[in-house]
């Protein structure tokens, strides 16, 4: 309304339900300057009007003793329809005996006002509640809107993070003379294996997303490897290989220095994968010579994905191998040793993984 804004044409609507003409006229006369008034002559008619448009009324004034459904019965129906917490209902009654009062309040009536009414009292009591409900609704709508905006912002930030991580990793791959496709495929292979084999059993989809995102950063340490080693065609000397091996530890150190990453669910996976994706099941990998299940399952998966991708594509030191040769080399342990469990899971989906490579560009 309302009382405060009485110069404006009223838009808020009140329903008066009373079988007595004079009661309706008195109430209508009081509220007319501030509200649009609808009237119903018995309980059933009033209930139908409320139910036919649940947004229509900002308050209902309800008589108790009426033919064709009394006020308490109307309250019961409104309670059933879960409307009493959305529309304030006021009982306007001549006799407020205890049983009636008790049931009315128990059902959720907003207030009970005694007849004969005193205009300024009834006006003020109802207006305060209407204002309260309106404020609450506006506030509720605003909170919902803000929640939606916050979620959208959070989603944008997550997408931006992914973009930055991919951009950084791709930049490093470019130095390596490769396209950005490598990190993208490692991400996809890692995610696919965890989503489609028993290795991912018990993992939430969020956990798998984090691992896949972390896999993108497995080679970030290569940023610290000199160009002449990183881009060298053919075999590295033992000294050069020692330097090359430090991309694992340097990768871990680099990730460790990004405070925003340390706070996220990706960090522990990213650090572990960067440092340990060259460990071997037989303990002859680097840098920590971890053995068997000392190597986390995500580092193991990224490790096999990395080997598979390297073999399947042309590199500065080699051509792409045909799929049959790639599969045989991994099975024969020519490119590292992997756990039987990992190999089994990997080859159970290798058919699909092979489809990640478009024949024209990537495979021989």
């Amino acid at each position, binding site marked *: 309304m309302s009382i405060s804004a009485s110069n404006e044409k009223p838009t808020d609507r009140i329903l008066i339900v009373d079988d*007595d*003409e*004079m*009661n309706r*006229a*008195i109430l209508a*006369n*009081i509220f007319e300057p501030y509200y649009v008034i609808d009237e119903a002559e018995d309980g059933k008619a009033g209930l139908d009007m409320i139910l036919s448009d649940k947004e229509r009324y900002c308050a209902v004034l309800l008589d108790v*003793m009426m033919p064709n459904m009394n006020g308490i019965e109307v309250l019961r129906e409104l309670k059933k329809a879960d409307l009493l917490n959305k529309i304030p209902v006021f009982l306007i009654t*001549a*006799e407020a005996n205890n049983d009636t009062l008790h049931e009315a309040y128990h059902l959720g009536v907003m207030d009970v006002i005694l*007849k*004969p*009414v*005193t*205009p300024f009292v009834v006006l003020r009591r109802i207006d305060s509640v209407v204002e309260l409900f309106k404020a609450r609704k506006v506030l509720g709508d605003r909170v919902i809107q803000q929640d939606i905006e916050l979620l959208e912002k959070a989603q944008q930030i997550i997408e931006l993070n992914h973009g930055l991580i991919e951009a950084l990793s791709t930049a490093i791959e470019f130095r390596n003379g490769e396209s950005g496709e490598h990190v993208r495929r490692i991400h996809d292979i890692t995610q696919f294996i965890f989503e489609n084999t028993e290795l991912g059993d018990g993992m939430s989809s969020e956990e798998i997303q984090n691992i896949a995102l972390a896999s993108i950063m497995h080679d970030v340490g290569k940023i610290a490897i000199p160009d002449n080693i990183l881009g060298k065609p053919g075999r590295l000397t033992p000294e050069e290989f020692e330097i090359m091996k430090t991309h694992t530890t340097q990768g871990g150190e680099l990730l460790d220095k990004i405070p925003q990453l340390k706070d996220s669910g990706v960090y522990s996976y990213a650090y572990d994968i960067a440092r340990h994706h060259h460990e071997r099941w037989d303990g002859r990998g680097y840098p920590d010579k971890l053995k068997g299940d000392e190597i986390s399952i995500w580092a193991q998966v990224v490790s096999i994905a990395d080997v598979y991708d390297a073999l399947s594509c042309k590199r500065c030191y080699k051509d792409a191998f045909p799929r049959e040769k790639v599969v045989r080399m991994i099975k024969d342990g020519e490119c590292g040793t992997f756990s039987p469990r990992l190999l089994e899971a990997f080859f159970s989906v290798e058919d699909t993984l092979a489809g990640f490579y478009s024949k024209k560009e990537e495979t021989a």
Partner: protein
Amino acid sequence: MDTEKKQRLHDAGIDVADALGRFMGNENMLEKFLGKFTQDKNYSALVEAFDKGDPEAALTASHTLKGVCGNLSMSALFEILTEQVRLLREGDFDGAKALMGSITEKYTEIISVING
């Protein structure tokens, strides 16, 4: 409504100022409902209910009449009817019937003032 009529209504037990307040100062509205009061069937229904010995009909009529009297600030009549409704609710039919004398007296006085 002239001052003299207001005074006569007041003398018959109607708190005119209070009633006008309820009608937000609208004298036409008050006069309209005072006029309707003379046509109201509840008083005769009340008399008939006691004649027939029908407590339920008596309660309905007494309660409704009481509501009308309350709205019109017929304080004296309202108070007696309030008492009658209370007795009828408690099941004291004879006690309620005993109030009919003073109810009729007040009612008749008011009707004649309104009509006069």
